[in-house]
C-alpha cells in the first residue's frame, strides 16, 4: 500500500471539491487511511481552489508538503502552473486543457500564459506532464459536468486499484441522471490515459 498524495487544483465552481470528495471516498472504501482538505473560504466567488487528498497506511497531516505531491491534478491550466512547485521530481502533472481567464488578466498587465509557457513551468519540477482533453470527453458523453469524472478516470490509470473499485463507488454516490455519462467519461479518460502512458514509454 503506497502513499498517494494528490493535489487537485482549479477554479471555484468547476467541480474540484466534488471530485476530491470522490477521490478521498474511493481511497477509504478500498482500505486506505484517508484525509482531504480544501481551501474553501471565498473560493465560490471564482478564486483558486485547492484540495489536498492523501491515501496511506496512516495519514497524519491533511496538507501535503511542498515537493511531496505525487499527482498534480489540475482542472485548469493556469492553476497547474500556480501549484507546480508542489510537485515531487518523480511526480506526475495531469492537466485538463481548459482555460478560465481571471479578471486580473483581462484588466491588468499580466496576461494569461500560453500552454507552452505553462508546460515550461511544470517541466522545471517534473517531466511527466499529461494534457487531458477533458472538455472533448465531456462533449462525447454529452454531459458538460463530466469533466471532473474524466479527470478521475485519467488519474485512475496511474493507480493500482482496478476500474471497478472506482465505478462501484461512483454508482453508489452519483445521481441516476448523470450516472451513465459520468461512468462513460471515466472509462474513456482511463483508456486515453493508458494510451498516453504507452506512447510516452514508447518514446523512451
Amino acid at each position, binding site marked *: 500500500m503506497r502513499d498517494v498524495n494528490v493535489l487537485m487544483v482549479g*477554479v*471555484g465552481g468547476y467541480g474540484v471539491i466534488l471530485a476530491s*470528495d470522490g477521490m*478521498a*471516498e474511493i481511497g*477509504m472504501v478500498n482500505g486506505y*487511511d*484517508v*484525509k*482531504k*482538505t*480544501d*481551501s*474553501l*473560504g*471565498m*473560493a*465560490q*466567488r*471564482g*478564486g*483558486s481552489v485547492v484540495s489536498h487528498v492523501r491515501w496511506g497506511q496512516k*495519514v*497524519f*497531516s*491533511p*496538507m*501535503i*508538503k*511542498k*515537493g*511531496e505531491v505525487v499527482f498534480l491534478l489540475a482542472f485548469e491550466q*493556469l*492553476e497547474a*502552473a*500556480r501549484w*507546480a*512547485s*508542489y*510537485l*515531487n*521530481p518523480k511526480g506526475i502533472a495531469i492537466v485538463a486543457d481548459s482555460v478560465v*481567464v*481571471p*479578471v*486580473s*488578466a*483581462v*484588466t*491588468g498587465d*499580466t*496576461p*494569461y*500564459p500560453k500552454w507552452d*509557457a505553462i508546460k515550461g*513551468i511544470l517541466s*522545471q*519540477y517534473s517531466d511527466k506532464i499529461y494534457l487531458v482533453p477533458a472538455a472533448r470527453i465531456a462533449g462525447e458523453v454529452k454531459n458538460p459536468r463530466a469533466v471532473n469524472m474524466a479527470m478521475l478516470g485519467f488519474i485512475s490509470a496511474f493507480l493500482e486499484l482496478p476500474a471497478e473499485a472506482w465505478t462501484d463507488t461512483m454508482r453508489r454516490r452519483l445521481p441516476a441522471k448523470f450516472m451513465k455519462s459520468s461512468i462513460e467519461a471515466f472509462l474513456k479518460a482511463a483508456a486515453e490515459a493508458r494510451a498516453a502512458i504507452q506512447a510516452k514509454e514508447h518514446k523512451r
Partner: protein
Amino acid sequence: MKQLLSGNEAIALGAYHAGMAVATAYPGTPSTEILENIARMEGVYAEWSINEKVALEVGMGASYAGVRTLVSMKHVGLNVAADPFFAASTTGVVGGLVIVSCDDPGEHSSQGEQDNRHFAKFAKVPMIEPTDSQEAYDLMELAFDISEKFDTPVLYRSTTRISHCKSVVNVTKERKAATAKASFKRSPEKFVMVPSYARIRRVAMEERIARLQEYVEQFPFNEMILADKKLGVISNGVAYQYAREVFKDASHLKLTTLYPLPVNLIKRFAKEVERIIVVEELDPYIEEEVRRLGIAVEGKKFIPIIGELNPEIVEGGAVKAGILKAATSAPAVPATPAPRLPARRPQLCAGCPHVATEYTLRKLGVRTVGSGVELSKNDIIITSDIGCYTLGVYPPLAVLDTCACMGASIGQALGLEKAGVANKVVAVIGDSTFMHSGITPLIDVVYNQGTTTVIILDNNTTAMTGHQGHPGTGISARGEKTQAVDIESLVKGIGIKDVNVVNAFDLKAIETTIKKCVANNAPSVIIVRGACPLATKKKGTPLEVDADVCSGCLDCLKIGCPAMTIAENLACIDAEACNGCGVCSQICPNDAISEKQP
C-alpha cells in the same frame, strides 16, 4: 461504521448522538456547516439566529430548560457573543451547553485572526479541542458530560483545518434520547445575577475550575506517546498532525483539554524527555503555561505566531531549532525563476446584484485615487461592511474605504460625520449583516441626528457563507416558510423618513437615488433589491457584443464582470458565463451590447 466526515459534520453528528435537542448559530466560515448539518436531523430544534449574541442567549434559555444545547459560530462571532458567554459561565447550566468556536488561522475568510483559547481562560470556561474528525465526533459527548457534571458551559474549539478536513470516522454510537423533557425550575440565586447572587456564583466558578483541574489529568484523549526521548513535542489541534508528520521519531504529548491544562501530565512528560518544544497555531498559549510550571520550553522561537501552520512551516521551524538537518523533501529549485502569473482573486460573480451599486458609487464618489491622499470636496467616503460586496475593494471597482466588523459601517459613517469631515459619507451593508448588527447603529444615527445615507444591498440571503436564511428572507434554517421581517417598514419604524427601494440592476435609478439621498440633510436609506443568482440558480439570456458597433473603449470592463474579456481590442462576452443582468449594456456608450440572438 466507517464514514468520511469533515470536522464540522463530525461535530454535528457527535452532538446528535449525544442527545442534543436545540442548536443555534449564525453562519460564518469555517463554522457554517455545523448547523447546516444539524438542520437536516430529525428531533432537533435548529435555528439561524439573528447574530451570535442572540444565538447564545437562546442556547442559555434552552439549557436552563434542561436540554442539551449546541451553539456554533466563527471565532469573531464569539466576540459578538462575549457578553452572554461570560454570563453563562457565571450562571452555569442545567442541560449541557456546548459552544463551538471555529477559529480561522491564516484568515482564509475572515477580517482578523485571533486565538480563542484565551477566551476559555478569560471566562473560566473549560475548553476542549479535537485533532481530527474522529475526535471531533468522540469528544462531543464528553463535552456535554463535562458541561452537566461541572455546571458550566464548555467551549469546544475547532479551526479551519479541522472543520474543513475530511477524515475517516468510526461511527460507534446511535442517538441518545434527547435529555429529560424540557422543564424550568425556579432558582433565582442561580439564574438571576444581581450582585449578591452573582458573588455566590463567583465562588462556584473557582471551585468548578479546581475540580476540573483534577478531572483533566485523567482525560482519555490527552495522550502521551513515548518514543525517542531526546525530544518531546507538545501540540494540540491540527498542529498535532503536523508535529507527528515532521517529528517522526520524537515523543509526543497531545493535548485535547486546553483549559484547564493537565499540568501533572505535562510535568510527567517533561521528566521523560530531554528537550521540549511546543507546536501550536497562533499564540504561545500552551508554551506560556508550560513555562509557568518552571519547565524549560521552546516554541514560538521557531514556529510562527502569525497565520496557519502546515508541514513545511513546522519542518522549517525544526531546521531552525537544529532538530532536523534540512528539509527532508526540498522541492526542486527551478533553473529559471517562474514568470509572474495573473492572480485569481475572489470576485463578484456574473449577474451579482451588488455590481451596479458599487460601480455607481465609484463613478459618483471616488474622485481621488490612492492611499493616504487628501480627498477632494466632491469625494464621498464609503464605509463598508462584511459580505460579498466587500470584494468591491479590489480593482477594477476599487470603491470601499472601510470594513471592520459586522455592522460597523453605519456607526463609522456617523463617527466620520460627527467628527466634522467635509465629505459626505455613505454606508454600504448587506441585508444579513444589517439584521445581524446594523439595526442598532441605524437607530443611533436617527437619535443623534446624523445625515448619513445607508445603502442596504438586499440580495435576500446570506450569500458569502453559502446562502443561509436570515430574518429578512422568511425562510427558516430547516427551509420552512416563516414570518419575514420587512426591512422597509423596519427602517421607517426606526424613524428614517427618506426610505427608497431601487432595482439592483437599474443603473439610472441607482444613480439618481444616491445623488438625491446624499444631497439630503437628513438620514436616508436606500434598499437596493436584487436576488443573488447563485441562490436562485436563475440564468437570464446571455448578452453579446456587436463587434461592428463596439468602439473598444472598454468602459464595460470597469464592472469587473467575470464573463467579460477582451478579444482583438474589443469587449467580448462569454455566453456560458454571462447571467444576462444587463448592467454592461447600460454602461456601453455605443449601444453595442444586447441579448444574444438564438
